[in-house]
């Protein structure tokens, strides 16, 4: 098999692409590193855009369709930019029976968006998650990555309102 060893050029001068490259290099640019590479992109850029998907596809010598297939198969990856703040409501079983649906309803009501959406002013993204594994503290909500325990709809509304008015 003739290997094409020329690496594609970085999409821009942005130094962060070097980190993406380093992840792929650590795995010898093998196609097995696709998920790891996408994790790195999302970690540093916040989401996976077309430029990133194309760059990863070229670097790993894979069709873009396959990369897109993987990126959309897994819930953890997002192809859209997130808002300034993210509110993730856990909808695991324990949280569900302890009132997570009411929390989500309250948040939807005041933010006027559904889970998976971002407000028009890009201030807030609301996500419903499968399970944080914080079942002992149900219902749980993660505000910008920090998990809050035993949340009430009122407390969630208060927090969201503060973010939206900031």
């Amino acid at each position, binding site marked *: 098999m003739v290997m094409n060893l020329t690496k594609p050029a970085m999409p821009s001068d942005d130094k962060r692409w070097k980190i993406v490259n380093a992840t792929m290099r650590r795995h010898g640019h093998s196609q097995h590193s696709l*998920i790891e590479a996408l994790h790195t992109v999302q970690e540093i850029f916040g989401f996976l855009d077309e430029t990133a998907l194309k760059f990863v596809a070229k670097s790993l010598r894979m069709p873009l369709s396959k990369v897109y297939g993987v990126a959309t198969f897994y819930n953890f990856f997002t192809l859209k930019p997130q808002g300034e703040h993210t509110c993730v409501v856990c909808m695991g079983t324990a949280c569900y029976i302890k009132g997570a649906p009411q929390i989500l309803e309250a948040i939807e009501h005041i933010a006027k968006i559904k889970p998976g959406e971002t407000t028009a002013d890009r201030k807030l993204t609301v996500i419903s998650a499968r399970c944080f594994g914080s079942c002992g503290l149900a219902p749980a909500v993660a505000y910008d990555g920090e998990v809050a325990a035993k949340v009430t709809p009122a407390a969630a509304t208060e927090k969201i309102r503060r973010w939206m008015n900031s």
Partner: protein
Amino acid sequence: MTPEELQKIADTELEAKQKGGHTLCVCMAAGCVSTQSDKVKESLQQAIEKHGLKETCKVKGVGCMGLCMAGPLVAVEQTGALYQMVTPQDADEIVKNLGKPPVKRLECDTTQPFFTRQKKIVLENSGIVDAERIEEYIAAKGYEALLEALTSMNPAEVTEQVSKSGLRGRGGAGFPTGLKWGTVAKARGERKFVICNGDEGDPGAFMDRSVLESDPHRVLEGMAIAGYAVGASQGYIYVRAEYPLAVKRLKDAIKQAERHGLLGHNIFGTTFSFNIEVRLGAGAFVCGEETALIASVEGKRGQPRPRPPFPAERGLWDCPTLINNVETFANIPPIIRNGGEWFAGIGTEKGKGTKVFALAGAVKNTGLIEVPMGISLREIIFEIGGGIPDGKKFKAVQTGGPSGGCIPEQFLEMAVDYDSLAKVGSIMGSGGMIVMDETSCMVDVAKFFMEFCMTESCGKCVPCRVGTKQMHELLTKITGGTATAGDLAMLEELCDVVKNTSLCGLGMTAPNPVVSTLRYFRDEYMAHINDRRCPAGVCKIGKEQLATV
């Protein structure tokens, strides 16, 4: 690393412990961290400095102590005193009272059944050792089992001990671990792999997360022993990306073990080499299925494939692969240390050892527990769990998540093991145990799990992809009060079809929550269909529903 060096690390560690003084152990597992235990730890450190006790007292972060609902938890190592719901403001008082009777206001009663009724094997170090220091694990007999296996046993003897122990897979299906190891050991192939399944996707389960956060080295040691037994030199741990703390602790633990020569080339000077890499999941429940997990480790979409061939013969990159769950591997070091017979002496005839459960939902003491197999559900829920809060009435306990079922009150006396749970229409599962009281509607619960399976179906086979969607629609009709008796018949038929014709475990078990609720709570379904009302008052039916449209 030589055996002498290992012993020296343990001795130094134990010597430091015997110097006297006090050690404050702060729970640094994800549960307590989300109630600010990191800030509590900082304040305790400051308080120690303020009172000039730096020489005699120290603070350390430890793993999960179990009682998540009372977090953050702080323990005094030397006296065994346990403090609950500690705030940073309490730090001063706790430090001032070291060496005196514990602060009454914050004390957590360690004589309550929650603590006394448990039996800890997997969690023996959890809440005691600092997960971020390999030295503490070594002092707690860590890596002794690996040393013993490598230097005084041959691979077949290791597998024999595991077989003798009667250990069955803790991921849920309960396949005999020794048999699996033997199959992989016998399989022909130049390269073999060991994979640890840490893709704890069951909503309502957090055992694996806690084990990985609290005692990561135990899992690494178990994997290395497995590698020796089956003839593999490379291992992968597949962990959910949703567990950042577990991922970080694991990666750090691997680095430490490599630095100490406990992973890598020629471990303990033998010819055995073993490396472990972490692979991140990306949020797909189906990846808990072994063939889907393998596809995901290979960087592909996590879709299962038909079995046979089983991964034991053709797994990762078509090589023989051993896949076990986190808790299964965590059981291995003590089995090798104490012998298979010791382990087989715990539990029931067909379920040996202990099981870790994540106890949550409508129960007073929510948290992580480890109990011997054969304990009754009543003991777990009403003694260890402290019963149902707010004077409510017990309705059901759900085990096995979306693949399991709801068990009603009449079976509370039943001894918990793989077979008894299967007999009543549920499964052991990975260990999620959600208690429900009278305020939960069982039809709504069934709909919740069906919604989960529908969205998590990978789409490869028709029965699962289309069947779960149809079942979800029917359940939505029932909870909305618009279903007919014909819809119920259709639902029952679909349960049968999806169960018997799906490709993998996800589809095969997806109907379980519906089947079990239909079996024990049929009256609730009938109330929704015939009387157009929800007995628990959860579902919005009729006028209420119109009002929200």
